[in-house]
C-alpha cells in the first residue's frame, strides 16, 4: 500500500472533471438540443410581451421594487437568534442578524442563512395526511373533537405530547394551560442535541474579558446558543495587530473543531484521558502523562496561575459531568467567577411540568399508558436512539399525530401528519441565551395550510383554533401592563423586548439533570457522536445549500463519513472512501472513511444528519445514519468500538484536495509584537496606476479574527442566487460558491496549525482573467471592480484557466430549479440569475454598492464609509471582513490595509489584488 499522505492526495484532479454528468448522455443531449431548437422556432416572432399587474389595493408598507426589512427571530436549538429579514414584495429572500439582539449582534451563522431556503423547500409538507392519504384540517378537527371529549372525561389520562425543548414563553404558557385543563396528560421533551442546563442552571461567560480561555471539548465559537456573541467577543480580542490585548486559547479536544483551529495550544486527547489531564493541571503531578499532555498541562498550569482572575474555562455541553464540574471549580478557584456565571435554565428541559424524555415516553407507551400521542415538530423515529425502539413503540398508541414541516420518518408512521409552519410564517416568541426576549414576527402568510406548535397546543387543549398572533399577544399583554399597544409596536420594530418588560420567570426544577452517560468500557476504540456542522441533528438534511457547504476541515459535501485520524487509518490499512463496519455495543453500521487531521488517535467521530429515508428529494439516502449506533439520548461517547474493513469503497465528494501550502505563504502567521514580513517590492506595471479618481472598492480579511465558520459562504449563496450543483457535479469540481474557505494544515499532533483562508474574487488591479477574454465579458470598472458581464460571456472559460486564485465558477449546465419550483421565490431580484454557459464570480456584491450609492445620491449626500456592506461581511460574526473605499484614507478598509503585515495572495504574479489579508495570530505562552 502506498504511504498515506493526507495533505497531498494522488487524485487532486478527479477523472471526468471535464465530462458532462452521467444523467445526460450525448444522444439525450442531441435530442434535447433538437427539441429546443424546434420550440425556439415556434416562439420567435417579436420581443416577448410583458404583463404588469398592479395591486388593486396597495399595501401601505410595500413600495414595489424596494426591499422591506422586518425584525424577527429564529429558533436555534430552542434559543433565539435575532434576525432582520429582507422581503421583496412580501417574500422573504435573505436573513441578516439583528444588531439589537444580544445573541446575534448583527451576525449570522450558516444554518441561519440557509434557513430561508427551507421555507421554499418544494418537499415541505403541504396538507394534512391521514394514514398517508391527503386529508384536511377540518377532518382532523372533527376527529380530535371526539377524542378530546373522551380524554377530557378522564382528565387527559392517556394523552402524551412530545415536543422539542424550547424557550418560547408562549409555547410554554400554552403547554401549562393544556396541563391545567387536562391534568393527567403528559408532556415529554426530546432533543438529540446537547442540553445546556445543569441542575436547573445554565452557564454563560464573558468571553471578551478573559485573557486566557481553556476550552475542554467546547466548540463555543460556532456550536452554542450564544456562539455568535462568543465569536464576536473572542475575535475582538484577536486582531492581527492586537498586541497586548490578544487573548490566549487552550483547547483540549478529541476532534478538530472550529474553536480548536483557533487555539494557541491545542491538545488532541481522548475523552477517557481527560480526567488524568485535568488532575495534572490541578495538582501539577504530570509524571504519568505522555509528553504532549505533560507539556500542555504544565504550560496551562503555569499560565492559569499567571492569569488568575482573568482565566476562563469552558467545557462543552457534550462533556461528562466530572469535566463540567472541573470547569466550574476552575473558574471559581481562579477568581474568575465574574467571567463565568450561571442563571436559571431558560429552555424547557428543566421545566417541572415535563414528564421526561424519549426513554420515559417509550416506557409509558410500552406500559400501555398512552392512547393518544401528539408529536410536535420533532422526528424521534429518526433522532431517537435505537435503544428506545421508538418506531415500534408508536404502534402502542391508538391515535398518533405528528406536526412537522416534512412528512418525515416519524410523520409517515403516525396516523395523522399535519404540516407545521416555518418560523418565517408563524408568530412566536423566544429567549436568547442571555435571557433577552425576542418576538418572532412572520414575514409571509403560511405557504401551505400549516400551523405552529403553539397554535397546535391551543387547539389540542380547547378544540378551537386561535391564531398565533393572539396567543403571543396574550402572553405579553399581561407582562406589559400599561400601554401594551405602544410597547408591542416598539418590540416588533426592534425585534427585541428591550423596554424592561419582563415575564415571570418560568419554573425550573433542579432535579433531572442531563441524561446519564455511557459507562466507559475498556478495550477497543472510542466512538464519538457529534451533530453535523451543517445539518445539525438532521433537521437541515433537505437543505441543498447546507448539503453542499463544505464541512470545516474535511471539506466533505453531500455525505457524512466516519472521521479517523490519518494515523489510525494507516494502522487499520484503510484509505479515504473505504467503507468500514463500525460495531459498538451490539449495533453495527457501515460508513465510509474520511481522514480528519488533528483528531486524537484511537477515536472515531460520526456525525448525525445522514441516512435519512424521508427527508425529501435532497436529503434522502445521503450518508449513513449515525443514530443507529447511539446507545441513548444524550450519549456522546461509546467505548469498545470495533472496526472491520468491508472491502467496499464509496466515492466521497470533497471541495478541496490539497491542504499543504508547499512553501508558499498563502496563510501567514504572526505573533503579538512580531515583526511583519517585509512589504512586497513594487514590480511596476504597464497599466495606469490605481487609485484613479472616484471610489476604489477593496476588501481586507483579518485571518487572526476569522474562525472559518462558513457563514460568509452561505450568506453569499443566499445573496447572489448561487445555485447548488449536486454531488455528481461537485465531484467534478464544479461547485459554484463565490467565496470559499481554503484550509491549510501545518505540523502534526499537538503542533498542528490550521489556517482558514476565505477566498472571494481578489478583484486584481492587473486581472489576468481580463486579458484572455476574447469577447470583453470581464473588464475592469473605473472603481476597480473586476466586472463579469453575463450577457457578453460566450463560455470559453479562458478567464477561469488564467485565474491564479481559482475563484471563477462556470455554469456547465442550467443549474436553476424547475420553473414551477417555489425555490425561485427566494431569489434576489437585484442579481441576475445566470444561465448555462456563462462564467460567474464574486462581484463584491455590486448590487449592494449600487443600491447604497443610489440611496445616498437620491438623498443628496455622499456615500459614507459603512453604507455598503457585502453579504459576507455582514454575516461574519468575527468582523474579519471589512469592505470599503480605498480612495478614502479614513475608511475602515484603508486603515486596515495600512496595518503592518497586510499582504496579498500570490503577489509575485503582479496581480495587485484588491482583496488583501492580515496574518493569522498565534499567541503562545512564553516558555516557563
Amino acid at each position, binding site marked *: 500500500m502506498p504511504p498515506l499522505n493526507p495533505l497531498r492526495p494522488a487524485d487532486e484532479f478527479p477523472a471526468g472533471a471535464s465530462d458532462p454528468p452521467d444523467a445526460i448522455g450525448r444522444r439525450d443531449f442531441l435530442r434535447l438540443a433538437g427539441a429546443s431548437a424546434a420550440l425556439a422556432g415556434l416562439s420567435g416572432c*417579436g*420581443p416577448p*410581451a*410583458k*404583463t*404588469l*399587474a*398592479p*395591486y*388593486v*389595493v*396597495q399595501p401601505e408598507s410595500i*413600495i*414595489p*421594487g*424596494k426591499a422591506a426589512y422586518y425584525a424577527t427571530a429564529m429558533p436555534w436549538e430552542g434559543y433565539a437568534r435575532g434576525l432582520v429579514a429582507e422581503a421583496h414584495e412580501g417574500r422573504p429572500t435573505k436573513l441578516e442578524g439583528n444588531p439589537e439582539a444580544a445573541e446575534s449582534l448583527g451576525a449570522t451563522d450558516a444554518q441561519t442563512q440557509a434557513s430561508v431556503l427551507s421555507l421554499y423547500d418544494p418537499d415541505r409538507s403541504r396538507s394534512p395526511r391521514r394514514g398517508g392519504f391527503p386529508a384536511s384540517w377540518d377532518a382532523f378537527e372533527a376527529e380530535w373533537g371526539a377524542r378530546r371529549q373522551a380524554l377530557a372525561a378522564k382528565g387527559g389520562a392517556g394523552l402524551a405530547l412530545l415536543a422539542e425543548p424550547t424557550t418560547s414563553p408562549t409555547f410554554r404558557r400554552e403547554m401549562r394551560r393544556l396541563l391545567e385543563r387536562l391534568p393527567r396528560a403528559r408532556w415529554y421533551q426530546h432533543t438529540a442535541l446537547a442540553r445546556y442546563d445543569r441542575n436547573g442552571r445554565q452557564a454563560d461567560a464573558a468571553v471578551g474579558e478573559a485573557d486566557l480561555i481553556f476550552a475542554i471539548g467546547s466548540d463555543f465559537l460556532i456550536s452554542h446558543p450564544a456562539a455568535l456573541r462568543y465569536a464576536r467577543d473572542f475575535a475582538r480580542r484577536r486582531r492581527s495587530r492586537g498586541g497586548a490585548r490578544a487573548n490566549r486559547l487552550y483547547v483540549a479536544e478529541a476532534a478538530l473543531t472550529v474553536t480548536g483551529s483557533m487555539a494557541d495550544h491545542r491538545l488532541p486527547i481522548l475523552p477517557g484521558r481527560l480526567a488524568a489531564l485535568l488532575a495534572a493541571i490541578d495538582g501539577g503531578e504530570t509524571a504519568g502523562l505522555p509528553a504532549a499532555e505533560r507539556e500542555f498541562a504544565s504550560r496551562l498550569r503555569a499560565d492559569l496561575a499567571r492569569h488568575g482572575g482573568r482565566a476562563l474555562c469552558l467545557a462543552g455541553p457534550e462533556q461528562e459531568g466530572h469535566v463540567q464540574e472541573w470547569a466550574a471549580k476552575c473558574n471559581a478557584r481562579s477568581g474568575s467567577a465574574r467571567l463565568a456565571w450561571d442563571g436559571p435554565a431558560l429552555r424547557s428541559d428543566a421545566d417541572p411540568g415535563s414528564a421526561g424524555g424519549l426513554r420515559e415516553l417509550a416506557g409509558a407507551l410500552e406500559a400501555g399508558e398512552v392512547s393518544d400521542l401528539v408529536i410536535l415538530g420533532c422526528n424521534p423515529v429518526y433522532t431517537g436512539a435505537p435503544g428506545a425502539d421508538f418506531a415500534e413503540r408508536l404502534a402502542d398508541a391508538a391515535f398518533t399525530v405528528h406536526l412537522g414541516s416534512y412528512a418525515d420518518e416519524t410523520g409517515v408512521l403516525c396516523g395523522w401528519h399535519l404540516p407545521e409552519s416555518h418560523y418565517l410564517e408563524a408568530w412566536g416568541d423566544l429567549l436568547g441565551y442571555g435571557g433577552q426576549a425576542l418576538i418572532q414576527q412572520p414575514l409571509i402568510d403560511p405557504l401551505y395550510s400549516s400551523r405552529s406548535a403553539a397554535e397546535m397546543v391551543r387547539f389540542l387543549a380547547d378544540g378551537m383554533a386561535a391564531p398565533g398572533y393572539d396567543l403571543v399577544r396574550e402572553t405579553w399583554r399581561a407582562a406589559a401592563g400599561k400601554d401594551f399597544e405602544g410597547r408591542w409596536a416598539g418590540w416588533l420594530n426592534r425585534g427585541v423586548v428591550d423596554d424592561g418588560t419582563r415575564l415571570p420567570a418560568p419554573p425550573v426544577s433542579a432535579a433531572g439533570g442531563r441524561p446519564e452517560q455511557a459507562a466507559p468500557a475498556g478495550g477497543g476504540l472510542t466512538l464519538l457522536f457529534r451533530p453535523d456542522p451543517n445539518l445539525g441533528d438532521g433537521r437541515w438534511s433537505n437543505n441543498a445549500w447546507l448539503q453542499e457547504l463544505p464541512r470545516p476541515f474535511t471539506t466533505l459535501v453531500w455525505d457524512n463519513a466516519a472521521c479517523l485520524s490519518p494515523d489510525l487509518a494507516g494502522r487499520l490499512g484503510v484509505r479515504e472512501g473505504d467503507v468500514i463496519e463500525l460495531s459498538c455495543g451490539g449495533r453495527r453500521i457501515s460508513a465510509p472513511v474520511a481522514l480528519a487531521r488533528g483528531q486524537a488517535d484511537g477515536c472515531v467521530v460520526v456525525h448525525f444528519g445522514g441516512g435519512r429515508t424521508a427527508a425529501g428529494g435532497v436529503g434522502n439516502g445521503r450518508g449513513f445514519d449515525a443514530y443507529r449506533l447511539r446507545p441513548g439520548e444524550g450519549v456522546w461517547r461509546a467505548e469498545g468500538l470495533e472496526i472491520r474493513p468491508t472491502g467496499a469503497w464509496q466515492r466521497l465528494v470533497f471541495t478541496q484536495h490539497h491542504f499543504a501550502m508547499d512553501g508558499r505563504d498563502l496563510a501567514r502567521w504572526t505573533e503579538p509584537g512580531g515583526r511583519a514580513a517585509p512589504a512586497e517590492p513594487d514590480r511596476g506595471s504597464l497599466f495606469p496606476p490605481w487609485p484613479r*479618481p*472616484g471610489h476604489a472598492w477593496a476588501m481586507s480579511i483579518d485571518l487572526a479574527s476569522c474562525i472559518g465558520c462558513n457563514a460568509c459562504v452561505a450568506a453569499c449563496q443566499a445573496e447572489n442566487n448561487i445555485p447548488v450543483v449536486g454531488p455528481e457535479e461537485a465531484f467534478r469540481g464544479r461547485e459554484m460558491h463565490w467565496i470559499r474557505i481554503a484550509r491549510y494544515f501545518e505540523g502534526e499532533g499537538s503542533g498542528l496549525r490550521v489556517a482558514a483562508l476565505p477566498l472571494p474574487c481578489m478583484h486584481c488591479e492587473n486581472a489576468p482573467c481580463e486579458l484572455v477574454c476574447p469577447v470583453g465579458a470581464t*473588464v475592469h*470598472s*473605473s*472603481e476597480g*471592480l473586476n*466586472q463579469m*458581464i*453575463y*450577457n457578453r460571456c460566450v463560455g470559453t472559460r479562458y478567464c477561469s484557466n488564467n485565474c491564479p486564485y481559482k475563484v471563477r465558477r462556470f455554469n456547465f449546465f442550467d443549474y436553476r430549479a424547475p420553473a414551477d419550483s417555489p425555490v425561485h421565490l427566494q431569489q434576489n431580484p*437585484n*442579481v*441576475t440569475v445566470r444561465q448555462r454557459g456563462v462564467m460567474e464570480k464574486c*462581484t463584491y456584491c*455590486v*448590487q449592494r*454598492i*449600487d443600491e447604497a450609492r*443610489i440611496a445616498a*445620491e*437620491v438623498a*443628496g449626500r455622499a456615500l459614507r464609509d459603512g453604507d455598503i456592506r457585502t453579504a459576507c461581511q455582514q454575516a461574519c460574526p468575527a468582523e474579519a471582513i471589512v469592505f470599503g473605499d480605498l480612495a478614502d484614507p479614513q475608511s475602515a478598509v484603508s486603515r486596515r490595509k495600512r496595518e503592518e503585515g497586510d499582504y496579498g495572495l500570490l503577489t509575485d504574479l503582479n496581480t495587485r489584488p484588491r482583496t488583501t489579508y492580515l496574518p493569522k495570530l498565534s499567541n503562545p505562552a512564553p516558555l516557563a
Partner: protein
Amino acid sequence: MSEPAPQRPPPAPLFGAGGTALYRAALGVVALSLLGAATAVFAYFHAPWWTRVGYAEDQPVLFSHRHHVGELHIDCRFCHSSVEHSAFAGLPPTETCLTCHSQVFTDTAMLRPVVASAERGRPLRWQAVTRLPDHVYFDHSIHIAKGVGCTTCHGEVGQMALLAKAERVDMRWCVDCHRNPARALRPRDEVFEADWHPPADQEQRGRALMAAYHINTTFLTDCNTCHR
C-alpha cells in the same frame, strides 16, 4: 508496329458557351441573397415592428395620457408614485383610479374593467410599453434625482391618446446619454413637466447641471452601472 488506337471523340462539354456567364450570375444571386438576408435581419431588428417604437399595445383599459396629463395636468407621481423612491416607477393600484372614478364617469363602458377589478379584487393586467431585458437594472429614482425628465425617455405622453413607446431603448441609446447626459438634464423642478422642451442653450445649461448634480460620466459607462 501496331496501328494507333482510334481516338475516341472528346466528350461534349458539360457547360455550353454560356456556362461561365451562368456561373457568375449564380454567384451574384447567392451574394445578393446573402446580403439581402443580412439586410432583412438588420431591418427586422431595427424596424418598429421589433423595437415597438410608435406602437400602442393592446391594453385592458383605453386609458388616455393625453386626457389625464395633457388636458387635466395631473402630476406623473399621482399614479406612478414610487418613481422618486424606487427602481420601479410604480403602476397605480386600481384604488388610485377610483379616487376620481368613483365619482366621475362611473358607469361608462370604458371604465368597466376598472370597476370590475375593484369589485372582484383582480388586478388589471397592463401590457408593458417600455421593456428592458432582465439583465438590465434600471433605476427610476436616481434618474429623477439627477434631473432626467419623464418625457426624455417616455416621449410626449401628454400628446398620446394611447401610450406608445417613444424611444428604442436599446443599449446604444442608453449609453449615448450616459456618455453625454448634458442634453437631457433639467433643473429638478422641471423633471415632471410634460411639455418640457430643451431650451436653445441646453448644452451649456446641461453641463452646469452635471456639475451641480455631481454626475461622473466615467462611472456611468461602467458595465456594472446597469448590469449586475
